[in-house]
């Protein structure tokens, strides 16, 4: 393959990019056996802390549990602060527009009337929830927690360019790995954090709690917030428990909740207690057996009615899936212009919608060069990576595509950027992506960086943990030393977090656009 490559660390065979110089100097001094020992130590700690995920229908070597570790790589993914600053502006802009879009879809539908998005694209979308028509939610915010997947690929000049690959507006996960990866790095290599000005991320649970509390029904003075989990056998259970604990709120299951007199209560040792805000990590379909999947035991019967009456808040709202579908994705740049009157800051990947005849024709003719995705697929399943597929696989996909063209989109195969990563044979470049977590409450905010996922298989572009992906710590690195004039000293809250806490993550946080 002669496609151009872009490596985050190495500009070419002999030189390292400026923002990796300090790290590279340090890495060159580390004996291989020490790094090997650190890898083993990290694995042992992750195991003991129980930072694991469950793979459905999977077994350990000893045939017992099905809890697996997500491989953690020791080499951080570093982003210079000026790149992050513009990415952050783009994220605020994009998520603001997406929230405006969802509100519009469930109210006046101006964007359809304006002819920008065909009506059937929305109404025939399985994620469109007619139950939400005309329902007002606090602050008109629907997607309170958004995971925006960003990749980088070289342009014609060989410079890395960021693209949004996907918006995740339902129940995006992975933020606990972002936090635990940082904790692990600071534990294994504290000296790195005194040598480098890495923006801290540990205040994420604080921002999340603040966002959730802001979304309480208007009349609630002291809102009771809970995290709703499908239970301990869910693949993201660790994260649900982790976030509930970090925020100091109850972790509830469907069986702990009930509806009475149009309010939601939880069963406690001292009788029923009212619940005001539910950070739900259960999909729409399972939230309320009376409204959606009747056999679901993961939700709470009657929840939808209480929600529609405004007596409880759900984060994210019901029906956000209408905006994160792959068939809606191509319209996001138009949404930004339509709702905000601004030029999109973040690029979309060029996308062929197979529902259109011309796009379908092009896709069929170029299957071996394209990535084709199911519109409703997730987790890296239901997709074809043309250049990495056999003839037979391509022909299979061609048949599926012809049978249901509107179920697919196609994109050029991006040469995802790589980052040096520990593998069996030593250090080798592996493809990565980035998922920042954007919080939308009274304002749109985020902690610097996000979760970097890495495809550990040589040449693989699939970074999902369910398919053998790993994670890396993500550093947003200040370019120049910050003058220490003393006046900007930070409250004691962050002083215990790290030696770099005085760098102030807050200074770079965007407000409302």
């Amino acid at each position, binding site marked *: 393959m002669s496609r151009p490559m872009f490596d985050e660390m190495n500009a070419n065979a002999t030189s390292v990019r400026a923002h990796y110089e300090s790290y590279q100097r340090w890495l060159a001094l580390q004996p291989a056996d020490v790094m090997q020992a650190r890898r083993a130590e990290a694995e042992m700690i992750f195991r003991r802390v129980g930072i694991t995920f469950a793979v459905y229908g999977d077994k350990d070597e000893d045939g017992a549990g099905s809890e697996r570790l997500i491989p953690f790589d020791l080499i951080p993914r570093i982003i210079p602060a000026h790149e992050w600053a513009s990415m952050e502006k783009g994220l605020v802009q994009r998520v603001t527009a997406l929230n405006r879009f969802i509100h519009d879809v469930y109210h006046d539908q101006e964007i359809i009337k304006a002819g920008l998005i065909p009506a059937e694209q929305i109404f025939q979308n399985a994620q469109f929830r007619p139950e939400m028509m005309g329902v007002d939610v606090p602050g008109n915010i629907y997607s309170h927690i958004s995971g925006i997947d960003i990749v980088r690929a070289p342009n014609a000049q060989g410079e890395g360019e960021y693209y949004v690959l996907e918006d995740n507006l339902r129940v995006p996960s992975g933020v606990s790995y972002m936090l635990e990866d940082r904790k692990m790095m600071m534990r294994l290599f504290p000296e790195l954090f005194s040598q480098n000005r890495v923006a801290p991320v540990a205040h994420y649970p604080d921002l999340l709690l603040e966002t959730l509390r802001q979304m309480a029904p208007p009349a609630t003075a002291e809102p009771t917030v809970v995290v709703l989990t499908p239970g301990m056998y869910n693949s993201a259970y660790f994260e649900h428990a982790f976030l509930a604990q970090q925020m100091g709120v109850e972790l509830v299951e469907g069986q702990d909740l*009930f509806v009475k007199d149009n309010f939601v209560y939880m069963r406690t040792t001292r009788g029923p207690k009212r619940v005001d805000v539910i950070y739900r990590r259960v999909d729409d379909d399972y939230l309320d057996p009376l409204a959606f999947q009747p056999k679901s035991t993961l939700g709470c019967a009657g929840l939808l009615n209480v929600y529609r009456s405004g007596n409880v808040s759900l984060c994210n709202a019901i029906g956000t899936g209408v905006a994160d579908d792959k068939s809606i994705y191509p319209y996001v740049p138009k949404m930004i212009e339509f709702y905000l009157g601004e030029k999109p800051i973040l690029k979309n990947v060029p996308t062929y919608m197979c529902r259109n005849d011309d796009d379908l024709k092009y896709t069929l003719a170029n299957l071996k060069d394209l990535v084709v995705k199911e519109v409703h697929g997730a987790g890296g399943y239901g997709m074809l990576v043309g250049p990495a597929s056999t003839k037979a696989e391509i022909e299979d996909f061609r048949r599926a595509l012809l049978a249901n063209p509107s179920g697919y989109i196609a994109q050029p195969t991006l040469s995802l950027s790589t980052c040096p990563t520990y593998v069996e044979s030593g250090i080798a470049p592996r493809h990565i992506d980035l998922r920042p977590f954007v919080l939308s409450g009274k304002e749109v905010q985020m902690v610097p960086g996000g979760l970097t996922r890495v495809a550990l298989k040589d040449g693989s572009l699939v970074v999902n943990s369910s398919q053998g992906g790993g994670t890396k710590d993500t550093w947003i690195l200040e370019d120049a030393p910050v003058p220490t004039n003393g006046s900007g000293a930070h409250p004691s809250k962050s002083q215990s977090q790290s030696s770099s806490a005085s760098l102030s993550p807050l200074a770079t946080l965007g407000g409302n656009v």
Partner: protein
Amino acid sequence: MTMLSRTADHLFWMSRYTERAENTARMLDVNYQTSLLPQSNEVAQAAWQGLLSISELKPAYAAKYDGDNINPTDVMDFMVRDEKNPSSIISCLQNARENARAVRGSLTTEVWETQNQTYLEVIRMLRGKSADFKRDPAQFFEWVKFRSHLSRGVTLGTMLQDEAFHFLRMGTFLERADNTARLVDVKFHAVESALGGVNEKEQEFDFYHWSAILRSVSGFEVYRKVYRDVIKPELVAELLILRPDMPRSLLGCLNEVMSNLAMVTSDPQSETLRRAGKLRADLQYSRIDEILATGLHAFLTQFLDRVNEIGANISREFLVPSTH
């Protein structure tokens, strides 16, 4: 402060399973140590049989092995590492950890990691070849005891003393009351049947037998300190049943159950509180000669029933409320 009923349920059972694993290890350890003494085949058999009946496992054991021929190796295997036996040490530790995992957010990081680490290590030690355990069972039992000590210690040392804490403590002491009562019952019964008359040889056996019971509840040195006397069965019974300052005695346990229960309910009508209070008062105002006169076995059987009732009441009142 209130908490989810389901959370309280998990916490209560987490500590019950941990305590059960510890007591099983204690009983197995004592039997194993005693079996190293010279003794007749019948006495040895009776001891292992007694162990199975303490845990009400005779039928399950008989179904798996040849019921009439009780073999120490089989009993140990069954009680330690048989994952199909819900009372085995590995099952108890697994259940404790699963309960902890279900509510890890309500535990401090240290408490959770202690539970998880115990589980990971027991799996490593017992699954597969398990050479460690076979070579030195005593060391394994010691390890189980110390993990339980650690679990209680880290709870006391790190948890906020809110409802979660009280349900954890209640689970520990209700389980311990149950386990001590079973141990005393079976061991006294064994002595009554094994020792008809009294002669030099048997008196010697007697000493080892009673000191084994005491050691199984870490009570040998305590006995000496409290009574400054030779080992006498009625004093052993008094120590394990009625001494309020003995941490594994029935009264000691009931005192703890009561004080933690009082912290989670303010309802004077609470049926759980009434039953627990009544049982505690009965112990508090009993004398050992009265108990022995009416029959120890009958007394302990009734005690176990009442502890069982209290457990059921806790469940009904706090843990799985049926309606609201």
